[in-house]
């Protein structure tokens, strides 16, 4: 393989995945390889033995500075299906308040010979920071940092879309809701554009769409009916309750009336359009139960594909590190 000239901390000199921190800087070929590798893990749940021995004896650490049982569990299950040993650390903010810096925490856990950190943190850039300071030979996977990125969630969404639609290039995708605060939306937009879809739309009120949203390579709509017209994929984002406090929205009721997905509104999309949601969903706020449990919804599949995609990323990263000269 040719040596790549890049300053992307995620890739090694040969352009292979060392860390998985963001979709930014990864090309279509690499994203496709992640999806292809995930395909080979997607069949595992159908077997009597649901794990492969690839990472036997390796130690993977969940380093969660922000609690999320759901995300942590899917990473844990993915690691275990690769036969790795898993350590879980929920680093409460009180530990850092006692004067222990993030780097102190990192050094302490590194001493346990972990080869991979799965990091979730409330601050944008935290995963990059940890990757920059991790010992050589340690991979970092971003499980969500602030508003910045949640690349494994985005890739499992891509996996779901590919399973249903095959080719990305003709697709129009609408992302609806709180794009401003969403790390998932940022990663999805990057992934969709890298995979070459025809159009990415974001739909929401001005208060929930970043002022410079267009620079992300999206078309901005403020009207749901207009934005859903002829789309192939609808991705609904979670609306946090605290948005009502920050004077971003008047009420859940008004939000649902304007941006909530119902079967009637879904009529505007293409007849074979699929509906996705990264979860956890607020029924009656982001969408009707009718839609969530309806035939277009692929929400439950997203969850099971999440494990296969995380296995793919983990195995690719550990292998790159294993091969790189120490």
């Amino acid at each position, binding site marked *: 393989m040719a040596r790549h000239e890049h300053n992307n901390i995620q890739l090694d000199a040969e352009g292979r995945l060392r860390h998985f921190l963001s979709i930014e800087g990864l090309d279509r070929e690499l994203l496709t390889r992640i999806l292809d590798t995930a395909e080979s893990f997607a069949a595992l749940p159908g077997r009597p*033995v649901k794990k492969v021995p*690839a*990472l036997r004896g390796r130690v993977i650490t969940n380093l969660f500075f922000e609690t999320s049982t759901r995300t942590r569990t899917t990473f844990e299950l993915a690691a275990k299906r690769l036969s790795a040993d898993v350590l879980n650390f929920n680093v409460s903010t009180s530990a850092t308040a006692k004067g222990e810096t993030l780097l102190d925490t990192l050094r302490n856990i590194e001493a346990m010979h972990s080869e991979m950190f799965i990091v979730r943190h409330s601050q944008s850039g935290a995963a990059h920071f940890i990757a920059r300071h991790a010992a050589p030979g340690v991979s970092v996977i971003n499980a969500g940092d602030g508003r910045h990125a949640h690349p494994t969630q985005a890739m499992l969404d891509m996996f779901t879309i590919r399973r249903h639609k095959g080719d990305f290039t003709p697709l129009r995708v609408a992302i609806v809701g709180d794009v401003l605060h969403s790390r998932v939306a940022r990663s999805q937009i990057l992934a969709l554009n890298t995979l070459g879809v025809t159009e990415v739309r974001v739909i929401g009120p001005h208060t929930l769409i970043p002022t410079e949203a267009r620079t992300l390579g999206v078309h901005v709509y403020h009207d749901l009916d207009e934005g859903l017209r002829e789309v192939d994929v609808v991705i609904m984002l979670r609306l946090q309750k605290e948005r009502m406090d920050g004077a971003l929205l008047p009420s859940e009721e008004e939000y649902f009336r304007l941006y909530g997905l119902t079967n009637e509104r879904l009529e505007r999309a293409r007849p074979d359009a699929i509906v996705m949601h990264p979860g956890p969903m607020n029924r009656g706020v982001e969408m009707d139960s009718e839609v969530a449990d309806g035939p277009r919804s692929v929400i439950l599949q997203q969850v099971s594909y999440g494990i296969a995609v995380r296995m793919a990323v983990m*195995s690719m990263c550990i292998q790159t590190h294993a091969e790189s000269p120490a």
Partner: protein
Amino acid sequence: MKTPHIFMQHDAIIDLIDGMVHLLRHQLDDREITDPALIGIHTGGAWIARELHGRLACPDPLGLLDISFYRDDFTRIGVNPQVRPSQIDFDVEGRDIVLVDDVIQSGRTIRAAMNEIFDFGRPASILLVNLIERSGRQLPIQPDVVGLRVPLQPHEHIRLQGPEQLTLEVTHRDSVD
């Protein structure tokens, strides 16, 4: 690495496979196996298995294994950039399996393949078929049916190309990895 030279052309390989079918039938009869199921190892083994599958007229679909994630050296060598899903569309439990690969050298691929098969279920027996047997065994694994035994030096590498026109190529490595 130097340029490869052709060791065997398509027609000769097909002749080998015909001979292997004969030997395999003999083995199956000896073991009183009437309903074997075939599994080929991705990629070369799958091509040979496809040929055998047609000639034996097995009712079950051909099984395919990608053993990348079962290799004992997974974290030392690169994953084949194109990992494919293993696909076994029959119940392995209690079956007599014919496992097919192109070349047997160290025996590690076969060990990995047997580990993966057992994750699908517990077969009654496994019978090993290889197109080429060469020296260099590192594990106590021997084929039951062989197309051809080829004496090769450690620095020589033999490889099956396909899938339409099968050819065997030998390359001389300047250094042994």
